[in-house]
């Protein structure tokens, strides 16, 4: 077993040692259920067998609540309590620490994403077989969630690597992710076309819409993947900085 995976496993399991994680997960799922069936008319008003509601709302729920909570501790808390020193002086490379932490946190987020599979399974399979579901958009929608969550978790990890405390990390991550979601809605109000395009280029929501509709653009994949890789590399540098500071 590689050290990366051992760190990821420990990180993943440590989420279940505190009640906070359980509370956040439960709250997230309850909220998602409410949003799915009630928000803006909800599922029944759409008159269509579609999970678009999940793919549109789940990322927001993850960004505003779950990802900041999951990622805030990753490095900020370890730096504060000194356990980072213990971890890094084990025979492990810095990039393995970063990657392990990322995988541990991403794993938890993916577990949550996977739990939303209950909706299509219960509604369109058993026990309430509501009819045939167009599977294409479902697959692409989940691919979108996968990529999006990788990007969001790595943003949180980077902020946690830079922040002095987990509270600070939580708020900054929250603000950054909130901005990345909401920036899309101001795009239409921009006076010049290039500004409009630039804003919708960085907007999470704009990037996620095609996935929910069943469209997979290479551009969107590259967008999320490059955020993830870029943030992980920056986090690696931030971790290395301790050597010289």
């Amino acid at each position, binding site marked *: 077993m590689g050290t990366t995976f051992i760190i990821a496993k*420990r990180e993943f399991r440590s989420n279940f040692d505190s009640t906070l994680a359980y509370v956040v997960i439960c709250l997230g799922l309850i909220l998602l259920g409410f949003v799915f069936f009630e928000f803006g008319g909800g599922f029944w008003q759409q008159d269509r067998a579609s999970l678009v509601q999940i793919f549109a709302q789940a990322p927001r729920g993850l960004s505003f609540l779950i990802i900041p909570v999951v990622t805030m501790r990753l490095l900020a808390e370890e730096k504060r309590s000194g356990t980072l020193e213990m971890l890094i*002086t084990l025979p492990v490379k810095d990039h393995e620490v970063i990657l392990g932490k990322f995988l541990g946190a991403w794993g938890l987020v993916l577990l949550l994403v996977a739990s939303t599979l209950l909706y299509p399974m219960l509604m369109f399979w058993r026990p309430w077989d509501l009819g045939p579901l167009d599977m294409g958009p479902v697959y692409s929608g989940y691919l979108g969630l996968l990529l999006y969550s990788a990007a969001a978790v790595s943003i949180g990890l980077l902020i946690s690597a830079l922040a002095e405390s987990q509270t600070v990390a939580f708020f900054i991550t929250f603000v950054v992710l909130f901005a990345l979601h909401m920036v899309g809605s101001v795009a239409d109000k921009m006076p010049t076309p290039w500004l409009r395009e630039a804003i919708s280029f960085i907007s999470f929501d704009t990037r996620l819409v095609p996935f929910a509709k069943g469209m997979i653009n290479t551009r969107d994949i590259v967008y999320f993947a490059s955020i993830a890789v870029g943030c992980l590399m920056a986090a690696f540098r931030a971790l290395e900085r301790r050597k010289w500071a």
Partner: protein
Amino acid sequence: MIEANGLTKRYGAFRALDKVSFEVHRGEVVGFLGPNGAGKSTTMRILTCFISATGGTARVHGYDVFDDPLEVRKKIGYLPQRAPLYGEMNVWEYLSFVADMRGLETSTFKKRMKNIVEVCGLATSLGKDIRDLSHGYRQRVGLAQALVHDPPILILDEPTSDLDPNEKAEVIKYIQEIGKERTILLSTHNLSEVEQACARAIIVSKGRIVADGPLEEIRAKSGRVRYVVQVHEKRVFEGSPAKKAPSAEEVQAALEKLPGVTSVVELPTDDRAHSFQLAGAQDGDIRAEIFQLMVSKGWLLLEMRREAQKLEDVFKALTKNDERRDRGRPIVEDDEDEAEAAGAEEDEDEDEDESAEDESDEDASDEDEDEDESDEDDKKKKG
């Protein structure tokens, strides 16, 4: 096993380590001593590859800390200050996590654990969450995780800080136990621990090594030995020519005339006796002369003892001078050569200072820090 060569570490303008060089050989238990902020932890962090030195090199078990950090870490068991552990894990989980990270087979881990649990006294707390443990037990878990892979070298950063006296004694006992077949570098500011556990000590102050050698040698560094003499104040030896008991001045004058005595200080006592502390040369022994004096004068000797200078005194003398010298001086000189030149000059000054101080120290009681401080301040004002 451990070689540090001219290690220097700067934090911005602050020089935490200044050309620190030392060696620790196989099987040695070495105490790394110094006041808080002297650079002990910084040195240890460099040796464990947690941070990098600004200058200089270090090798652990033959591997360079900069080039082969993974190999170095494999050979080291490290306990950082205050034993930071994952509070949410229980002891067994944590230790097996460390073992996994170190690539130990499960069967080897279980075998090693039997021994470790016994040595560290963890048998009853294996299932407890680390956050629920007392500080002493956390420290034991910290020691246990450093021992899991049976490393040839142990680096322990203040393993006994924040512990109560019983726990301290126990941790020292463990260190003595595990130090039988390992190389240990142990940092602390508690001197009695060093005296118990180590044969050799390195004393650092303000990022520099001020003493390095066997404890006996360091103790002898001051080159002095103390005698305490008590003479009866009311009575004299019956049948002696002396008619009345001596006054304090008389005794003091007589003691000062003894060969090799550099200072005589009166100690506070009740009104039954005169008590004096004498300072003499390290290699001499004037107890016979003292007795001779008492007999010839017909005084009643109540107590006489000779004691070598305590490590604590040497430590204080070595590290306090350094602190004073640093006051009001720029912390860092940017130009390396100039700094060295200035350093050489300063060293000379320092020698003079020290000899001057030695005298004043002899006059005053060694224990009395405050007085020393004010003495020093006065000197500065005059200077």
